């Protein structure tokens, strides 16, 4: 960050010393037009947030935290998003547990072990392409691979929700997020200076020892912040879950004597963005403010995670530059 500012300043100095203090109206016009486009994004964001919060206020004013702690209900005045929040957290837990280790491991292999040959370049290109695939295609994959083949085929689920469980949904999201995780980790590893590796290898460390004791510690902050941002994105995804089996309903309940395994495998679940979608589709006017209120909760949770990641990134960038 500091290095960038220095260079900009140099170019700025060059520009100012040549142009002098002459005011160019056309330049000001162009600058203003460009600034306008940037500020428009700010305006759009502010409008979006203001409109949503305004629509959501009646719900919080009349019901307060009850909205967050109640269960889904077909009655707008008692519907709450607790199940959705819990489902989203469980799904996020899955994504962290699956996508994080696999993503970091794959990136470590591609950056540290694999030689730069056609196979490696092919794998890298493949990962970049996967990152650009629409999320609903991952939903189709999840439906086919995790619900049908894994749950119904391998585990033989056929009663009740028949395989449309949190595990299938979590795996679908993990697969969605995996390519991005690999890419961010790869970039973090690439940012580690090569001299560090060379020095470690020179004193006799093996490749793995170098990675574990020298490369990873330097790269971990960037890896973690990138991962947190990716996971936050998974939190807001709903298209894949539509196909992979989240409950799109005004009411569902989980058995009170369900064990942990039951909750993971045989009980219905939903996620917060799915509930937002479902509320938004409802005809009753009361559901409009419910939708807005759920969006507010969703955005608050997302912004918290994003802010934490950005703060951590700033802190570590200052440390390691």
């Amino acid at each position, binding site marked *: 960050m500091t290095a960038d500012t220095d260079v900009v300043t140099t170019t700025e100095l060059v520009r100012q010393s040549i142009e002098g203090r002459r005011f160019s109206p056309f330049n000001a016009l162009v600058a203003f037009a460009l600034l306008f486009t940037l500020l428009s994004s700010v305006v759009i964001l502010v409008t979006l947030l203001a409109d949503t919060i305004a629509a959501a206020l009646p719900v919080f004013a*009349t*019901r307060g935290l*009850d909205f967050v*702690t*109640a*269960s*889904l*209900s*077909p*009655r707008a*005045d*008692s519907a*709450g998003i*607790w*199940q959705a929040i*819990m*489902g989203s*957290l*469980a799904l*996020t*837990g899955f994504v*962290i*547990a699956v996508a994080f280790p696999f993503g970091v491991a794959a990136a470590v292999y591609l950056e540290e072990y694999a030689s730069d040959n056609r196979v490696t370049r092919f794998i890298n290109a493949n990962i970049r392409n996967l990152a650009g695939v629409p999320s609903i295609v991952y939903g189709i994959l999840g439906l086919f691979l995790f619900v049908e083949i894994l749950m119904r085929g391998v585990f033989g689920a056929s*009663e*009740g*929700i*028949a395989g449309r469980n*949190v595990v299938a949904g979590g795996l679908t999201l993990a697969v969605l997020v995996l390519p991005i995780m690999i890419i961010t980790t790869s970039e973090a590893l690439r940012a580690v200076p090569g001299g560090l590796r060379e020095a470690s290898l020179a004193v006799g460390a093996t490749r793995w020892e170098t990675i574990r004791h020298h490369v990873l*510690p330097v790269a*971990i*902050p960037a890896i*973690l912040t990138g991962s947190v941002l990716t996971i936050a994105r998974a939190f807001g995804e709903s298209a894949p879950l539509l196909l992979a089996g989240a*409950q*799109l*309903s*005004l*009411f*569902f*309940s*989980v*058995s*009170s*004597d*369900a064990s*942990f395994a039951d*909750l993971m495998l*045989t*009980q*219905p*679940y939903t996620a917060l963005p799915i509930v937002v979608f479902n509320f938004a*589709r*409802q*005809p*009753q*006017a009361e559901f409009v403010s419910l939708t807005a209120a759920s969006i507010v909760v969703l955005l608050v949770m997302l912004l918290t995670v994003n802010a934490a990641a950005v703060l*951590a990134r700033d802190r570590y960038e200052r440390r390691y530059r």
Partner: protein
Amino acid sequence: MKSRIVRLLGLAVVLALVAAACDIDGGGDMTTTVAGAGTTSAPDTTEPSAEPTTSIEGGGVDLSGSIVVSGSSTVEPITARVGEAFDGANPGVATSVEGPGTGDGFARFCAGETDISDASRPISEEEIATCEGAGISYVELHIATDGLTVLTSLENEAVSCLGFTDLYALLGPESEGFANWSDANELAAELSAPNAPYPEEPLVITAPGEESGTYDTFVEFVIADISEERLGEGNDFTRADYNASANDNVIVQGITENPTSLGWVGFAFYEANQDVLKALEVDNGESGCVTPTAETIASFEYPLSRPLFIYVNTSDLANRPELTAFVDYYLSDEGLAAVADAGYVQLPAEDIGATRAAWTGAMG
């Protein structure tokens, strides 16, 4: 610093999973307190339906298992309310109620994936065959009545009543491309429609899409016979060029925004928006133009009255005490109170008796 972050992340994962494990359905206890709050604010909630402790036969906290309901989004509000109340007294049962549409609900039902299928029309011949082929036996239970209300804008003074032939001329398969009401005059004259000719105003149609039972019912009542007579089999569809929506709120909006609009929704949604919509009377061919009201619908005098059903899978009832208990509760007085709560028309007493008899018969 790095280890602290790793520890925090690990803690987050553990918290997330533990929280999910402990409380995916945390609202279970909340239903009672929320129901209490409901009595003070909402004038139309019938709180007894939230506290069914005394009326469930053989029920109570010992029931376990799961109940999966899918089908009509029209019936979904009723079944969801019943499910919510049932769950309050039987927390051991996992209940799930979804509303993808009557047709899609039957597809799942006849594949054995659901226990109960909500339907806003009777099961069709193909669906019966599919169910038979899959070895699924079921019972049809008539639980409520709904009226399809044909709507136009409050500002539309010119049209007040339409018969089935009028509706066919305006909305049927041969009407594709009619941009004005008057474009249908020729067709209407052919059919001797009672309310033709129509004014020369833009015909803006907002109506349910084809995945909904509301659409199916409309086609069955209004379009099917006439289209079969004129065009032969396989043409029982409406015109395709209208603003289709699965969201009745969108339909209501579409109707209110245009002074000469046309569409149809279920009676409940019309009732909820009575102040901004004009319901057209429908000519029932006998007593003339009938206005949709709770009475005319319940008595089926209003020609576009449709029965709402639940179809229960009876293939394995002996091993499914929770399913039996659920349907028992559904058909009890407290359960059926959800019908009115959701805005539909209650069955008259003898029809309720007939439904209960059908259920008892299927159980034995």
